[in-house]
């Protein structure tokens, strides 16, 4: 009681109950200790993006001059974007990236659902150890695996195809998604499934009609995460693919837009910008799911 009256004097009441004794901190002090550092963090974290956007619309003369204010564009131009879209295979790369990410995501989610359900619910011997090894598998970084995988891809004659990437991306997506979904399945009460079993439902019906609908948030988290991971994947795409038609955006931009000593900064930045936008937009719609996926994967 006394807490809320004190709070009304010093700070907005909404902050009082959930923030302990923080209402004792005065506003000027808060500005110095909280807002100023936070502002600095935001400026530094966002500056590269701002710079990307500015560079995209700057004509070359402005890019290469040291005069004037570099933080603003005087004569915005679409020349870089036009060059990117019509003089390079950028649209192809974009299409490849979308295709590969979507397919890899769906394959991984489907496999992970089955795997996670089996590990969580079928209670076979050693399911705990399988769970642990799945987690360890997630920790194996791609930079260790790309050489042997390249060898396998050669042997399977998949080199330089989209299928190579579609098949290899799940190696890091499945462990992650499985781990995430295991957490979600654990939270679904076991009694629900028992009821269904008594009513004569098969395992498959339980999975599709009871567990999956309840695990939709988990599925979305895993899906978003898998999609961004495969969109961002670089080293496999760089190693397993060499012709321009099958490259993904990150690899294409790095390997083909950089020609000789003259860097087309405008086009490069435009490429980076359009490669980043889709994930950024998708992410902004599902922030909550993404964050819960991120933090859910780290907990436990």
């Amino acid at each position: 009681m006394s807490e809320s009256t004190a709070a009304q004097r010093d700070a907005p009441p909404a902050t009082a109950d959930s923030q302990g004794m923080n209402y004792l901190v005065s506003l000027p002090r808060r500005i110095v200790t909280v807002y100023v550092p936070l502002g600095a963090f935001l400026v530094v974290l966002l500056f590269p993006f701002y710079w990307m956007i500015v560079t995209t619309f700057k004509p070359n003369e402005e890019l290469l001059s040291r005069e004037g204010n570099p933080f603003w564009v005087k004569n915005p131009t679409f020349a870089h974007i036009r060059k990117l879209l019509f003089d390079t295979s950028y649209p192809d790369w974009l299409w490849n990236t979308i295709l590969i990410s979507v397919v890899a995501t769906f394959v991984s989610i489907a496999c992970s659902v089955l795997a996670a359900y089996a590990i969580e619910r079928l209670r076979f011997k050693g399911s705990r150890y399988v769970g642990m090894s799945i987690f360890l598998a997630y920790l194996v970084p791609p930079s260790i695996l790309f050489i042997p995988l390249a060898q396998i891809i050669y042997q399977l004659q998949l080199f330089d195809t989209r299928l190579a990437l579609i098949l290899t991306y799940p190696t890091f997506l499945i462990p992650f998604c499985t781990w995430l979904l295991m957490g979600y399945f654990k939270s679904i009460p076991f009694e629900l499934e028992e009821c269904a079993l008594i009513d004569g439902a098969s395992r498959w019906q339980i999975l599709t009609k009871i567990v999956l609908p309840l695990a939709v948030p988990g599925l979305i988290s895993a899906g978003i995460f898998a999609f961004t991971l495969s969109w961002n994947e670089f080293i496999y795409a760089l190693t397993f693919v060499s012709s321009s038609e099958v490259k993904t955006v990150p690899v294409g931009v790095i390997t083909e837009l950089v020609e000789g000593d003259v860097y087309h900064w405008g086009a490069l930045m435009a490429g980076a910008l359009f490669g980043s936008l889709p994930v950024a937009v998708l992410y902004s719609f599902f922030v909550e799911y993404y964050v819960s996926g991120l933090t859910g994967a780290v907990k436990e």
Partner: protein
Amino acid sequence: MLPAAVLLLVFLTYPLGLGTWLGFTDTKIGRGGEWVGLENYVFLWGDSVTRLALFNTIFYTTIASVIKFALGLWLALLLNKHLPFKAFFRAVVLLPFIVPTALSAIAFWWIYDAQFSILSWGLVKLGLIDRYIDFLGEPWNARLATIAANIWRGVPFVAITLLAGLQTISPSYYEAASLDGASPWQQFRHVTLPLLTPIIAVVMTFSVLFTFTDFQLIYVLTRGGPLNATHLMATLSFQRAIPGGALGEGAAIATAMVPFLLAAILVSYFGLQRRAWQQGGGDK
């Protein structure tokens, strides 16, 4: 279960084994190799570039992880205060982490450009330096510049996951502590840190693992140059194996990273266990 198991076996366990095996052979692209025993490792041990890469990797990982942790924890503490537009801030903060690294690295490349760097421009205008800094052209500049870019990308991850940990700490602990007269620093030291330790351990293990095996950032920014000053184990192994064609040697370099990763995992695992035991055996 079965499809996942098959995919994982074929594309994960098998490559791991194959990778280790390749490390003991002299395989080249397009030609099977023969067992050469430890020859690759002996050669690499005597190879100054590999030693430099090992040093770089450890240097890069240590500095970047420590700074990422410090800044990330700070940012998490800031975000944990009650702020207007909290959700918005959180979403914005995570942006560097979700954007493809290769693409944000290009932005850094441009920011670090020797002739048109915006950083140099700003410093010159402020009168702090009189000529443009060659960020990526000199060994130590390049090392620090890549570390800075790595930190930029890694801080959001650390901050957001630590924030999730902070939010599970009940405010009543802080109330109790401040009623007992604890200063903010004491509250942080004796309430926040102990309760946050498990999640810190996990987050930092992830962060160390991914920094240690970093590839994209270095590949885009410097390709290991100048004079191999920024080569990490991962970029060196790519360099030797794919453009260089020496698959066996590259695989040996990659395999050489595994003990370090295992060590990192074990340290945090046993650290956590000891922690749990202390808490269980303590007065609570």
